[in-house]
């Protein structure tokens, strides 16, 4: 083995190693860094409008498709189809929106900026927190837009302002917790294209085998059993009950349990994956 070293040079007084103070991240580091990263991601979102357009056109297409093409053939008990549909669309929108966490993180990994972040004395988990917070804020925008579009095609809140706000909040909570699943996916795949695919594959059956577009009563028994308990049905039912009225407690409780459980499992997994590099 070779030990190499060079002689002294003429350059004057380089700082020697004797004076190193250990650097400890202050407790505030996580929050400060998460805000900086979130801001950076929001600037990115604002400057790449084509991404936002794509993220909004797709749910608008779904609204038009189900409102005017399939809607006439779908009968749901107790309300008009448009009042049934839009709460479902709100949940679908936040779930699809959460997949952008996978794509964005994967892009950051591919183009090297994650290496920059990892080489800085900053909070590790702040990179993921900043990303998911920015994606959450984007989801807020898209959900509000969907309410506007929904209102345009005949949707109305029938249960008052407070529950309507709660409905938006609960949808965003599920979307935020799913962002951490997609963070893990984004950190685990090789490139953004794979992240896109790996994000959508699990989401499709979850969104369609749910009460997002139609009542699960007409599904075969085995599918009903799955559709009934999964988080997207729970969230759609909650949002629907909050906007249109009806019993809410069970579905609300399950949506919160699902969201907290997903966050508790996938948050640490994603952070661990990020640390490992």
């Amino acid at each position, binding site marked *: 083995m070779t030990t190499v070293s060079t002689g002294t040079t003429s350059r004057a007084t380089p700082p020697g*190693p004797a004076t190193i103070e250990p650097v400890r991240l202050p407790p505030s580091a996580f929050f400060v860094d998460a805000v900086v990263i979130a801001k950076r991601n929001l600037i990115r979102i604002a400057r790449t409008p084509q991404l936002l357009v794509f993220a909004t056109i797709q749910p608008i297409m779904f609204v038009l498709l189900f409102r005017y093409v399939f809607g006439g053939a779908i009968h749901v008990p107790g309300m008009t189809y448009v009042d049934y549909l839009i709460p479902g669309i709100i949940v679908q929108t936040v779930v699809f929106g959460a997949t952008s966490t996978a794509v964005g993180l994967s892009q950051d990994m591919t183009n*090297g900026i994650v290496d920059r972040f990892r080489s800085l004395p900053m909070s590790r988990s702040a990179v993921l927190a900043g990303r998911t917070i920015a994606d959450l804020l984007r989801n807020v925008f898209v959900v509000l837009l969907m309410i506007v579009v929904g209102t345009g095609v005949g949707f109305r809140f029938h249960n008052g302002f407070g529950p309507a706000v709660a409905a938006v909040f609960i949808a965003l909570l599920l979307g935020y917790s799913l962002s951490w699943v997609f963070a893990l996916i984004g950190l685990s795949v090789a490139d953004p294209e794979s992240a896109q695919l790996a994000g959508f594959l699990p989401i499709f059956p979850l969104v369609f085998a749910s009460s997002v577009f139609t009542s699960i009563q007409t599904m075969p028994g085995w599918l009903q059993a799955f559709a009934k308990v999964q988080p997207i049905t729970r969230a759609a039912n909650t949002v629907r009950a909050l906007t249109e009225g009806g019993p809410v407690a069970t579905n609300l409780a399950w949506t919160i349990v699902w969201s907290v459980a997903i966050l508790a499992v996938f948050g640490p997994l994603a952070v661990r994956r990020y640390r490992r590099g």
Partner: protein
Amino acid sequence: MDMTPTTTPSGRGSMIEVGGVSKSFGATRALVGVDMSVPAGTVQGLLGPNGAGKTTLVRILATLLAPDSGRARISGVDVQDDPNTVRSLIGLAGQYAAVDEALTGRENLVMVGQLYRLGTKLAKSRADESLERLGLVEAADRPVKTYSGGMRRRLDLGASLVGRPRVLILDEPTTGLDPRTRLDMWAFIRDLVEEGTTVLLTTQYLEEADQLADHIVVIDRGKVIASGTSGELKSRLGSDLIEVEVGAADLERTTAALSDVGCGKPTVDADRSRITIPVCEPVPDLMAALRTLDKAGITPSDLGLRRPSLDDVFLALTGRATGEDVPATPRRTPQTAGSPS
């Protein structure tokens, strides 16, 4: 063979210390027992072909990757025991500019400053300083996606300077840059060293190591195969070289004819049909070569005497030219590439 180590008392004064570092990826051994010590305020060149292990070593020193075994310290701080202190001491700039395309140059630098938790005000003034220094003031408020390759690389270097690093780790900082921009980068790096920054520079360009590095470590297939100053490395090939270029048909005949000339084994580059002979007494040896060629009736297309380049050193050490990638099957280690003491 080892270059005589000019004394640096181990530890003290040494800003980068690497001891017995190994790293494998599956069956690929990226680094095998690498040792290195870089005194404060100097430039260490880390020279090797693609796939030699340069980037792996850089990633270990930058706390991006943990070694399988061995120790690495920056300014006496172990990269695994205390990564955050190491991160506060280093600046990393790479081959792939790690900047955000959607942000402006200034926004990128301010963001990095904020992530060092300098506070917004200081982060802004450091960003201005870096932009000024790297000649990016005019482009500062344009999104990086409008920047040229050279500008991105400069911004990336600027980002690594925001934290005022004592140790700058540059992973192939000029790969893919045009000659003009490369010269600018060299000037920046020299300035930083003047100010006392210690630099580890990986490169595939021998000229770059020759120009910038006080000391050079040559690595190949994860192992240190030589080290020394550029002068020391060159002197291993004899003082000068005779270079003869002939028609491809004459190559073998010429090699045979010149076998007694000079004071070392000729190197034959068949692709360029060129023969290189180390010489000890340049002028008499050159004259002898001329007489020999004349007698054999060979008229070379080019003939000259030149100082050896690091390319020659590399070729002699590895049996490959610098441009060639590492072959899949391991080759015999050439005699000159002694695994020393």
